[in-house]
């Protein structure tokens, strides 16, 4: 009988707290962009440049955050700061896996690794920079007398041109992918999953509590 009372007691207590929980849950679900404290970092390679996008998972960019680039053995290759939009770009100094570490202050930190095979081959880097380095661009145009004979076009030049066009076309797509990668925050599934775990733990606790109780 006594135990029954206790049981009733705790369920009544829970009613109040359940109300409280649902109030907070409601707030969490209705307030847009609810998550704050996770730094998301995404990077993609275009030509010879690695573009980095950063932001908190609620969509606000990590402004002026320090970003460092390491090679796999932990040597710092370079460092810089993100701009107002949380973007940063750099030219990789060597073809290795690049580990990007962003420090947004107050203990917020994000990591992203760019695998080596996404990076351009270092010797061929010079070719893909047609846009960036005018001298090369000029070179590729010099045989602009091309028109005389199509045959004179070197397959390498075609490669450069095709590469450039494809990259231009793919740019929006790449950005979209990078953005959607950044958005993987939380979902209702995870929220309810977490609450489920906690209630499961409660169940285990109650089980042992009542097993102990029934023995004595």
């Amino acid at each position, binding site marked *: 009988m006594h135990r029954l009372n206790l049981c009733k007691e705790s369920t009544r*207590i829970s009613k*109040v707290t359940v109300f409280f929980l649902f109030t*907070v849950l409601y707030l969490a679900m209705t307030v847009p962009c609810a998550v704050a404290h*996770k730094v998301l970092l995404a990077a993609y390679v275009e030509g010879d440049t690695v573009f980095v996008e950063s932001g908190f998972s609620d969509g*606000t960019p990590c402004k002026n955050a320090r970003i460092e680039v390491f090679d796999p053995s932990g040597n710092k290759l370079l460092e810089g700061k993100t701009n107002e939009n949380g973007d940063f770009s750099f030219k990789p100094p060597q073809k290795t896996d690049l580990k990007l570490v962003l*420090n947004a202050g107050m203990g917020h930190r994000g990591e992203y690794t760019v695998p080596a095979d996404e990076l351009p081959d270092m010797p061929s880097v010079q070719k893909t920079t047609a846009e960036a380095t005018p001298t090369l661009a000029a070179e590729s145009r010099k045989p602009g007398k091309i028109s005389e004979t199509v045959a004179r076009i070197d397959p390498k030049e075609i490669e450069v041109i095709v590469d450039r066009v494809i990259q231009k076309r793919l740019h929006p797509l790449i950005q979209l992918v990078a953005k959607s990668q950044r958005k993987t925050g939380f979902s209702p599934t995870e*929220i309810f999953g*977490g609450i489920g775990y906690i209630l499961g*733990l409660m169940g285990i606790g109650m089980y042992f509590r009542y097993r102990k109780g029934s023995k004595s």
Partner: protein
Amino acid sequence: MHISEGVLSAPVLITGAAITVVGCAVGLKKMDYDRIPQVAILSSTFFVASLVHVPIGPSSVHLLLNGVIGLLLGWAAFPAILVALTLQSILFQFGGITALGVNTVNVVVPALVCFYMFNYATRRENTFISLGSAFACGFMAVLLTSIMVGFSLVFTGEAFMGVSKLVVIAHFPVMIIEGFMTAFCVVFLKKVKPEILGVAHAPIKSM
């Protein structure tokens, strides 16, 4: 308050983990097992509260609710918050597994301090004292947490005053909001279920 993986140095992490283990042991020992449901529900409240983002202020901050949780749970806040933080780091990648101990300490120790400071005052009959201390409880818990975060970061090389100031300023809106929330909770509970405020420490007969 979630400090990410790889930010803190080993001594800080180990100290945090050690305090958490001891705190959880004490918490589980002291916990009245008939109140497991309440502990679980407050644990899930904390789990969800971190998703409520406060848009004011220079940085993005979220609710903590450690004042209320400390007030209602006392030492049982240790296991409750450890569970919630563990799930947050697994499911949302908030904070990191290695930083779990430090994060738990940063949230629970202020909650406990506030519990001892305001537990009796909030149970007083006088509405003014009870309300005022409840507000102070919510406010202080977040303030102390911000200061402790600054403290844990100081060993990582960031200048203490700079970081602490930044964290405290960023959390100022949260302190105010939580002050009001705690006051509201205390008033509500006193009306609906006055025992709940007392049982965390020792059951008291009349209010």
